């Protein structure tokens, strides 16, 4: 029984708009949602040009894909997968080939889809379970006849062979996809022992935090709901004016269960603390989503957004170290999550913005990665709290970090207090002036 892939009409439009020049192929990603009965392809985007010394579109003229192309394509896939909210993922790849190269297409597609899956899952804080769908789609399109051949592979089995799959086009509207959102407070403390490597410790720290998230209890609308019960959708309007079907309030509750019998004392060279609030967002399958899907989707999105941001920051800092800006200490803001609706669809994707970047940079990045032009107005950066302008340097412990965070709030309040005082002073002055004039008039 083959899988059915339902693709949005915009995907069809996009794919037919791609032209190949000469005997060159175009690779790209298919993005959407996996669900039990069928998979939905909501978006497609071609692999961006690689700036190489080679000819044309960066593909070698002999054979379909060399190793550099493969690496480029998998890196693109990883970047794109980081821009997807929960519930959406890179479902597979497409390949537009001229008829003379169509014989090698299946094996190329196979290489590509396995490599992409491997690269995307590196550094991920959760593993695929039996409940997850492990089929990925490959779409082979002949550049001359425009005929599409759809096959799927089971990426869990390295020896799996291509299975035929159905591919059809149908308008897909975002309003039938329930959206779940919540804001989660982070509090990770990672110690780096003397003879250890930064990235291994951070990975370990993230993993143990992720284990607690996986074990956390999730309440829906303040109640513990059975896994299999159906979700009742509600409606909410957001800041950009779009109407979303949204399930109400999700609450994650953590407990510490493993009460080991010994205290661990280590001599450490460094200490990392990650704190703040992140916004999580996930789309659920349109067909009778259940409570367990919503809980899983939030958990996964939370783990993805945190690991993605921490890794991005660490890479950025590593580059700074190489450029002789010194080893980083003190407070570094994590990239901020913004959401944007692509013109072709109603679904919102996300991106991460460093404090020194602007909204224009986001638009530029979206154009490069997703081959889409977005306006700056459609980028919503209000869903997460923004950074203040504080640059305190602290040399001490947790309690002082606490104070730092508290003083952030204080300054916001201080601003309002000052405003209030000013207003009051202003009014008092006016009153005094008025009464003076009145008095002088009387006299």
């Amino acid at each position, binding site marked *: 029984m083959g899988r059915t892939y339902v693709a949005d009409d915009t995907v069809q439009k996009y794919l037919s708009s791609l032209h190949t020049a000469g005997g060159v192929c175009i690779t790209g990603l298919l993005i959407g949602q996996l669900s039990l009965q069928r998979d939905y392809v909501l978006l497609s985007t071609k692999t961006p040009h690689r700036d190489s010394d080679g000819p044309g579109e960066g593909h070698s003229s002999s054979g379909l894909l060399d190793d550099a192309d493969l690496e480029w394509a998998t890196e693109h896939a990883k970047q794109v997968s980081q821009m997807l909210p929960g519930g959406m993922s890179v479902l597979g790849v497409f390949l537009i080939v001229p008829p003379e190269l169509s014989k090698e297409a299946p094996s190329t597609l196979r290489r590509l889809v396995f490599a992409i899956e491997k690269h995307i899952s590196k550094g991920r804080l959760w593993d695929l379970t039996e409940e997850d769908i492990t089929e990925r789609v490959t779409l082979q399109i002949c550049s001359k006849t425009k005929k599409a051949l759809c096959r799927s592979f089971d990426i869990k089995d390295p020896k799996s062979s291509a299975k035929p799959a159905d591919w059809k086009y149908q308008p897909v509207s975002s309003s039938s996809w329930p959206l779940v959102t919540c804001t989660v407070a*982070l509090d990770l403390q990672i110690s780096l022992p003397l003879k250890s490597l930064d990235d291994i410790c951070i990975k370990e720290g993230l993993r143990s935090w992720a284990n607690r998230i996986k074990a956390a209890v999730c309440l829906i609308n303040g109640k513990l709901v059975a896994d299999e019960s159906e979700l009742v959708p509600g409606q909410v309007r957001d800041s950009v004016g779009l109407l979303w079907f949204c399930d109400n309030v999700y609450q994650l*509750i953590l407990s510490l269960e493993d*009460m080991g019998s010994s205290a661990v*004392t280590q*001599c450490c060279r*460094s200490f990392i603390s990650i704190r703040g609030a992140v916004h999580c967002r996930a789309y659920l399958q349109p067909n009778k989503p259940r409570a367990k899907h919503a809980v899983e989707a939030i958990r996964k999105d939370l783990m993805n957004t945190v690991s993605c941001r921490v890794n991005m920051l660490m890479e950025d800092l590593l580059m700074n170290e190489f450029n002789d800006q010194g080893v*980083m200490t003190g407070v570094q803001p994590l990239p901020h999550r913004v959401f944007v609706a692509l013109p072709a669809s109603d679904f919102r994707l996300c991106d991460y913005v460093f404090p020194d970047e602007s909204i224009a940079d986001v638009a530029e990045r979206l154009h490069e990665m997703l081959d889409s032009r977005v306006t700056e107005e459609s980028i919503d950066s209000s869903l997460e709290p923004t950074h203040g302008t504080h640059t305190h340097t*602290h040399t*001490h412990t947790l*309690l002082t970090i606490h104070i730092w965070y508290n003083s952030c709030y204080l300054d916001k309040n201080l601003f309002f207090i000052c405003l209030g005082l000013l207003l009051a002073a202003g009014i008092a002055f006016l009153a005094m002036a008025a009464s003076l004039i009145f008095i002088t008039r009387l006299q």
Partner: protein
Amino acid sequence: MVLVDDGAMILRLGGGLEFLCQLDVSDASQRQLEVSRSFADLRSRVKAESLVFSLTDSALFIWPNKSFQASLDDVDESTACGELLQSEDDDGGGKKKKKDKKSPVVNLRFMMEITEPTEPSAPCLYRENKKHHCIRMVLPMDCVVTVRSDETFGSSCKRLLRALSTQLSEMEAVTLRHMKDTDVPVPRPFHFSLPTSTELVTIVYPASVDDKGLESFRKELHNRFELPDDRPYFRRSNAFHFPDEPYKDGYLRNPHNHLNHPNIEGAKPYLVQGVYSYHHYMQDRMDDNGWGCAYRSLQTICSWFRQQGYMERTVPTHKEIQQALVDVGDKPAAFVGSRQWIGSIEVQAVLSHLLGVTSKILFVSQGSELPSQGRELANHFLTEGTPVMIGGGVLAHTILGVAWSETSGQIRFLILDPHYTGGEDLQTITDKGWCGWKGPEFWDQNAYYNLCLPQRPKAI
């Protein structure tokens, strides 16, 4: 012993709190201050609005610091605690657990909510590159309050919160007292039921220090609670055992608790005090059917001494018992590994050698005379309260108590029979009389009997 009266119940709050502390490598003087700071941080955490109590095996979650928000509609601040027992029972079709009649326990766990923070701030990463000692441990919080079943849930939760905060302070005191350089012991709470108080008393002990090392601390406690110096009320193994907690080793504890007292006019029951495990034939994959009865009775007695905190080592095996007898010169070396019987004298010798416990030997020339020992046995259970080993005829048994009438002299014996060869099935053991009340006709009227009455050591 504490008798929790009708209408009283215990609310028990457990959970782990992560303790994290960074100590300066060079400056040792600040260390205690740093530890105190970390504990102060934890005390403020349990006051946070994001603290959640969850009732185990139920869908009830409450936010005690956030105007008592609850996840079940029919529960709020004014709900009586007694009603919580019903919520706990709703397991959905499972077997109804046999609830202890005396003091029902409601188990709560505390957790932290991480969603919808009250003051969200932008996510940041803070890094400090200073060499330091990092101490990490999970504090095993375990607070207990005794409440009346008509007391409101709201006020009980307030008491639990205070208990949580107090426990953190006690843990801080224990940690500071037993801290060596950068090594800290895990402070672990134990609950004790004392004759001088109706509520359970919670004491925090450092995990790394053994009972001997804590003797001076226990002396202070005995003084504080005005307890006599001859009983180990505060040893860890004497901690209160909650009725709903299973024992991990699989042996049955105090099967006699499930029996009804014999109905004899004027007779009062005099029973073993404390907890013992039932040892019998064929346990531990040891086939001692036909010869091991006295060994098993001895094991039951050893289990009593271990569980009352007088013995730290495990209950001895048949071989270890035999080796002990060889060591004291009572038996030749070939005794070890044999299937030879032992009697009360050997039991006395082993108790003395392995546990340092003295025992009184009682000799009865005829089984028919055992009832006349009623006063002696009643006295024994009243003052010592240890199980008694009796050997005679060709059998050995354990006497766990007597029901004796001072006026009429009528007597029944509570017998634990080591000849049972089946599994740890409480129903069978009590129904078929493997643990049961027997009359004077139980004994071989013509055989002579020796009884070994172990004496409780006078120690704390």
